[in-house]
């Protein structure tokens, strides 16, 4: 669906239009229903994103509204991405075109899955999230700047001026995104000597001696 390239390298900022998705405890079964998991690649997941919620709301779901077409900054409430560990959920969002998520809080496995894909999940105070969702709804064409250097989300409105909200991200994940080291396989593989040392000291790998 999205023609924007998938994340690669250092991620310091993203600019794009916002997509407010209100609601607490939105689980990964809703983000991508299980029937879409019958696949051996992630390539075609965009079509399944929020499939059941969207059909229930018959065109009125934020992911279907024309004013949000092409939006790339998802703004959610608390415990977003709870439930199943399926990476299909962030993969589906990413392939639909989402490049950053701002919310009150995230489920842990979902947050980690997003990080491994270069999809920043930033937290903000509940009142700020609500304000941001309302501001986007009022002016869906305005661009948002998600700034990982300044740790802020900035709504850039040509007529009404800019509006800024602070966001948070733990130092570790932030460093990984800024440095481009969010996809950590190479780092893990590089520590093979240390890995062997750890394994050789584990009782259950050594006859419990």
């Amino acid at each position, binding site marked *: 669906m999205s023609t924007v390239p998938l994340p690669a390298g250092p991620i310091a900022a993203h600019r794009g239009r916002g997509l407010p998705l209100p609601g607490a405890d939105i689980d990964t079964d809703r983000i991508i229903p299980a029937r879409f998991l019958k696949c051996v690649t992630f390539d075609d997941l965009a079509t399944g994103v929020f499939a059941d919620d969207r059909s229930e709301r018959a065109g009125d779901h934020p992911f279907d509204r024309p004013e949000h077409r092409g939006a790339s900054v998802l703004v959610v409430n608390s*415990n977003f991405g709870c439930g199943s560990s399926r990476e299909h959920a962030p993969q589906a969002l990413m392939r639909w075109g989402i490049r950053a998520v701002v919310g009150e809080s995230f489920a842990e496995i979902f947050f980690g899955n997003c990080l491994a894909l270069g999809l920043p999940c930033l937290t903000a105070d509940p009142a700020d999230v609500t304000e941001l969702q309302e501001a986007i709804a009022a002016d869906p064409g305005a661009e948002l700047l998600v700034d990982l250097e300044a740790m802020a989300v900035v709504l850039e409105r040509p007529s009404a001026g800019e509006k800024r909200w602070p966001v948070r991200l733990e130092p570790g994940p932030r460093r*990984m995104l800024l440095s481009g080291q969010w996809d950590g396989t190479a780092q893990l593989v590089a520590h093979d000597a240390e890995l062997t040392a750890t394994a050789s000291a*584990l009782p259950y790998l050594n006859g419990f001696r």
Partner: protein
Amino acid sequence: MSAGTLYDKVWDLHRVAELPGGSTQLFIGLHLIHEVTSPQAFAALRDLGLSVRYPERTVATVDHIVPTTSQVRPLADPLAEEMLATLEANCRQHGITLHGIGSGRQGIVHVIAPELGLTQPGMTVACGDSHTSTHGAFGAIAFGIGTSQVRDVLASQSLAMAKLKVRRIWVDGRLQSGVFAKDLVLHIIRILGVKGGVGYAYEFAGPAIEALSMEERMTLCNMAIEGGARCGYVNPDALTFDYLQGRPAAPSGEAWDRAVAWWRSLASDPGAVFDDEVRFDAAAIAPTVTWGITPGQGIAVDETVPTPEELDPDERPLAGEAYRYMDLRPGAPIAGTPVDVCFIGSCTNGRLSDLRAAAAVAEGRRVAPGIRAFVVPGSEQVAAAAEAEGLDAVFRRAGFEWRLPGCSMCLAMNPDRLEGRQISASSSNRNFKGRQGSASGRTLLMSPAMVAAAAITGHVVDVRALLAEHPPTVERQPPLTPALP
């Protein structure tokens, strides 16, 4: 601070390196894979030109997509067949053991690893499935991961992890007769919330926990993730060791004695420091049923669906959504809610003791007219053991269907699913919207005995009433270790 806890001890033993991002590289002692979350990981491994670092530490089975009526190959659903064939090819190529259909050892990944003795105290266990927390029942640190992390474990037998805090959940007293580990965990999640555990590992401890069987401990730890805790665990004790002894992958001979000594040393110290502690009284817990669309929206079977006024203001929007979706009226009793489908099974409640508890209710009774009720054993071993003691016949006589092992209608990736607005009484773990295969299907989570009672009466009912009028003929028995083929 969680000094002296099992979590800290296991964490320290598995530390490989500190990573530049601030996380820790953690060795993974046991990696479990299945057909849904592994194919893309193997593909990524190939793209990176990497091989599997410790193929003997990864074990595979097939569970999510397998049909429960006929498992003859090729599977009727071509997509399911493709996923299974891909798993078989990947395991063959990389020298990974696969417990496939008909092997006698196939089943839900969180059922088979314990019954094969693969899951042991002190291990780190990872699997591309959130219910990996199940394995914490053995005093392992076990957590679900995404597919990118499956790739990382395949490539390096390790993961980049941030250390969790540890909350001790101390449970005094004993569960009443007719109240099960499922009720306990639904009650805990109801009180602490579905996001209460985010950032924490849950240590379950106290007299009520020590009194639980290993299978009950698995049910409890299985649903830690539904409370937001990525892992939950119980300190290993004599019951843990008894369960493990003689299982195929468990140590034997002199190594067994050394293993037990080491396992004992891993339990949280008497003076261990916890980041947080909460207490519950097991005796005060009743059979619990969910009324909403998250596992935290649960009530005792004799309570009424909460009204908005009875809820915290921040719970009200989700409650409003739940009233509409579930079509349940605030203030109405949950008992008496009619059901259409009754499902007994899943990684939460698909083990032998679960089937015994349900059979004790079904014995000598009949499924109510118009109700579709079916039992899906958690593994081929569970099925064999249940059939050996005649549970399949008890269920069949009562009008339940007796199926082949798999995840089945817990998440409906196979043909078992709700239709339209059907409402299910389900022994599974999630009541999310659409979870059981119909976009408008509804799920009431409860214990297997409660599901059996709902099947018999056609509506939600307190199983204790049925048990009182009809004492169970299938008593609690020690866990069987069926002979392997």
